[in-house]
């Protein structure tokens, strides 16, 4: 795989802040978002991208895959909790409950109940402002799949966020 061209690198630099926001919407805390962004950039630099690849869409896809890998490793860690330190979870709760982060806490709890597929699709469209076509390209699924995932994500959020807010 060829390394990044200068124009791809420049495009990526311009898109970095948006991808960082995407990472934050997936992880729900700034430390994990920075880590996910760093992993994304490392992978893009290590593997490069095709000369005709759209740098931003490619990077979002790499980020998505990195997050999915993280979710899978979390599933393994949940099966073997004695092997895991819970520091990141403690930092998450400390960050979320302080001051203005109660809203973040409620939304994050609701988002955590979505499937990974739904959360990815909703983040790209509702937060990143991507079109369904762009989102389908990034997630490598048909547009129809994006439509149904987003609708289901919103239904699940209405059920979970609304109920947690009422508590």
């Amino acid at each position, binding site marked *: 795989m060829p390394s990044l061209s200068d124009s791809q*690198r420049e495009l990526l630099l311009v898109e970095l802040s948006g991808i960082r926001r995407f990472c934050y919407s997936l992880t729900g805390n700034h430390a994990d978002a920075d880590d996910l962004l760093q992993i994304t950039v490392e992978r893009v630099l290590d593997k490069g991208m095709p000369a005709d690849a759209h740098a931003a869409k490619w990077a979002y896809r790499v980020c998505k895959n990195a997050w999915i890998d993280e979710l899978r490793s979390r599933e393994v860690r949940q099966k073997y909790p004695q092997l895991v330190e819970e520091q990141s979870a403690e930092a998450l709760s400390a960050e979320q409950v302080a001051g203005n982060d109660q809203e973040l806490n409620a939304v994050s709890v609701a988002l955590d109940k979505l499937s990974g597929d739904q959360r990815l699709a909703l983040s790209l*469209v*509702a937060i990143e402002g991507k079109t369904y076509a762009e989102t389908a390209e990034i997630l490598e699924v048909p547009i129809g799949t994006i*439509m149904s995932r987003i609708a289901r994500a919103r239904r699940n959020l209405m059920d979970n966020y609304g109920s947690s807010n009422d508590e």
Partner: protein
Amino acid sequence: MKHDEELLSQYLDGELSAPESLQLEQRLAAEPELRSVLEKMQAINVTLQNTFNTARSRTVPGRIIQMLNTSRSRAPVLTLGTRAHRSGWGFALAASIMAASGLLLLQGTGQADRPVADVLLAQVLDKAPSRGEGWEMLADGRQVRPVLSYARTGGGWCREYLLSDQTGIWHGVSCLDQGRWVTEVLGAQSPAGSTNEYRTASATDTNQIAIFMEEHAADIALSAEREEELIATGWR
């Protein structure tokens, strides 16, 4: 309702055609329950935006920007500008320090290959007026203060600035070259933790800034009004 929720979702995201939107709007006017679901979806959208679309959420750590900048070239620091003699510059420049400043590096003799300012710095040079105090914040945590602007002999414009990052404060001059801000001079003004923003005028790097201006400035520094006009027209 499942199909309706997909329709409402697409409507919210601007993905329906004009005829489809019109049809749905007619239904929304006549069906309060449908309208209520849309309002809940809109409220969720607003919450997501307000929660995740913040300045903090978009802030990229400097170390990650450096990854993209430093991977462009691992050449040692080059000499900048067009003067033949390099002795006595006294710049405390090393590849890692230059990389930490976020500037792109190219190995060269200073003639054809000169570093191009990264996009964050370039945005400030494009848009921010010169100032005597205070800083423009960059998304990666660095700070920039454009100090003055002047016309360059032969045409074009140059801007002198201070750049502050975790390694210290840098004093530089970048000039527009075919639409890109090219770094002509850069020196370490003061190391990180220093309380002095400026060393004395006899400091070698400040001399090099002055020498470059003496050789390349067509006139005195631009007035605030003239600079404002140029910023408004994209430095044309």
